[in-house]
C-alpha cells in the first residue's frame, strides 16, 4: 500500500490531474447535502462523505480522499481545521509542493 502513503495537497484546479489518486485538500464547507458536501478549495469541490465525517458549515476541513472520475472526492479521513485558516497560505503550500516535488511527493506523482 505504499502508493497511498503520499497524499499530495491540491486545490480545485489540479483535480483532473489526480483522478483515481488519493489526495489531500483543505477547503471551507459551503454546502451540506446529506451524503455529500461542497467545499471551496480555490473552486468548488464535491466531496462524498463517509460515516465518520461530521462536516460543519463554514468550517475548514482537511480531507484525505480519492478523486473520482467525475472529479468528486470520496472521503477517507477528514479533520476539522476550524474557521481561522489563512487560505492563501494553503495555496502557497500547494504551489510550493508542486514546484519542489523532491521534498514532498516524489517525481512520479
Amino acid at each position, binding site marked *: 500500500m505504499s502508493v497511498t*502513503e*503520499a*497524499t*499530495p*495537497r491540491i486545490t480545485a484546479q489540479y483535480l483532473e490531474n489526480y483522478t483515481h489518486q488519493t489526495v*489531500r485538500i483543505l477547503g471551507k464547507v459551503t454546502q451540506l447535502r446529506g451524503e455529500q458536501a461542497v467545499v471551496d478549495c480555490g473552486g468548488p469541490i464535491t466531496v462524498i462523505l463517509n460515516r465518520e465525517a461530521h462536516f460543519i458549515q463554514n468550517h*475548514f476541513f*482537511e480531507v*484525505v480522499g480519492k478523486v473520482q472520475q467525475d472529479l468528486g472526492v470520496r472521503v477517507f*479521513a477528514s*479533520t476539522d*481545521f*476550524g474557521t*481561522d*485558516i*489563512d487560505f492563501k*497560505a*494553503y495555496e*502557497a*503550500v500547494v504551489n*510550493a*509542493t508542486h514546484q*519542489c516535488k*523532491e*521534498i*514532498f*511527493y*516524489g517525481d512520479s506523482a
Partner: protein
Amino acid sequence: MDYGYSAQYSTTSYGAQGGAGGGGFLNQGSQESPAGGKQNQYGKDTLRPVTIKQILDAQQPHPDAELKIDGTEASHVTFVGQIRNVSTQATNITYKFDDGTGTVEVKQWIDADAGNAMEMDDSKPKLVENTYARVWGRMKAFNTRRHVGSHAIRPIANMNEVQCHLLEATVAHLHITRGPPESARPQGATINGDVAQRNAGYAGTGGLGSLSPHARRIMQCLQTVEQSNEGLHMHDIAQRLQMDMADVGKGGDELLAQGMIYTTVDDNTWAPLIL
C-alpha cells in the same frame, strides 16, 4: 547521581569546549544523548524543519554517520504531522506520523519517574490518533528503516501551523540547495538587468546590488581572476580593470567594510570571502 562520572567523561572528550556545562546538559538531557563518541558533533547541531519524505530520503554515508538531508548533516529535525497510530509499550510510546508526504515512526521514551505524573495530568491536550502535532527529535537509522527519537511532541493548536511548517521546510530546503533567495539580495540584478552579475554566484549576505559600480567591478574581478589564496594586490586589480588607483582604493574599502573581501599579506592585497 552519576554526575561525577559524566562530568569527568565529558572533560576528556570535550577538551577546551567547556566540558562541565556540556556535561551537565548531557547528564540531564534526554535518552538521546549518546554515551560517548559523538560529543564533537554538538557544536554543529542544527534544528531543521523538514517533511517526512525528507526524513525517509535522508542519506547515511556510512553506518553510524550522521544522517544527511540535501548533503547537510541534520541531526535534529522538527516536523508537523498527523498521528495515525499510537502504540504504548513498556519503555516507549511509538507514534506513527503522517504529513501527506509519507509516514514515519516516532519513539518517545517513557521516563519512569515522571511517567505517572504525566498520565495523571489531564490538563495537557492528549496526543491521540488523528490529531496534528509538532515533533522535535533526532533522526535514527535502523538498517534501511528510519525513525525519529523524539524529545518533545506538542499538539497543534492553530491549524495554520501545518501550512506554515510546510512552507518553512521548503524555504530551508531551497536555502540549502540553491542559496539565499533573490529577494534577499538588495536591489538585485533584475533592476540593473545585469544577468552576468547575478550569475557571478556570490551567495553571501548583502549581494552585489547595493555596491557602487567600482566596488562591484572589483568584486567581480576578484571572483573571476585566477589567484593564489593571497588574493590580488590593488595595483594588479587597477591594471586589470583599467581603473584609477583611488577608485580601486575606495571600492576596496567598501568591500572590506561589507565583509565581502579581506586583506591578506598586506593592507592592499585582497581576497574575496567565499562562503
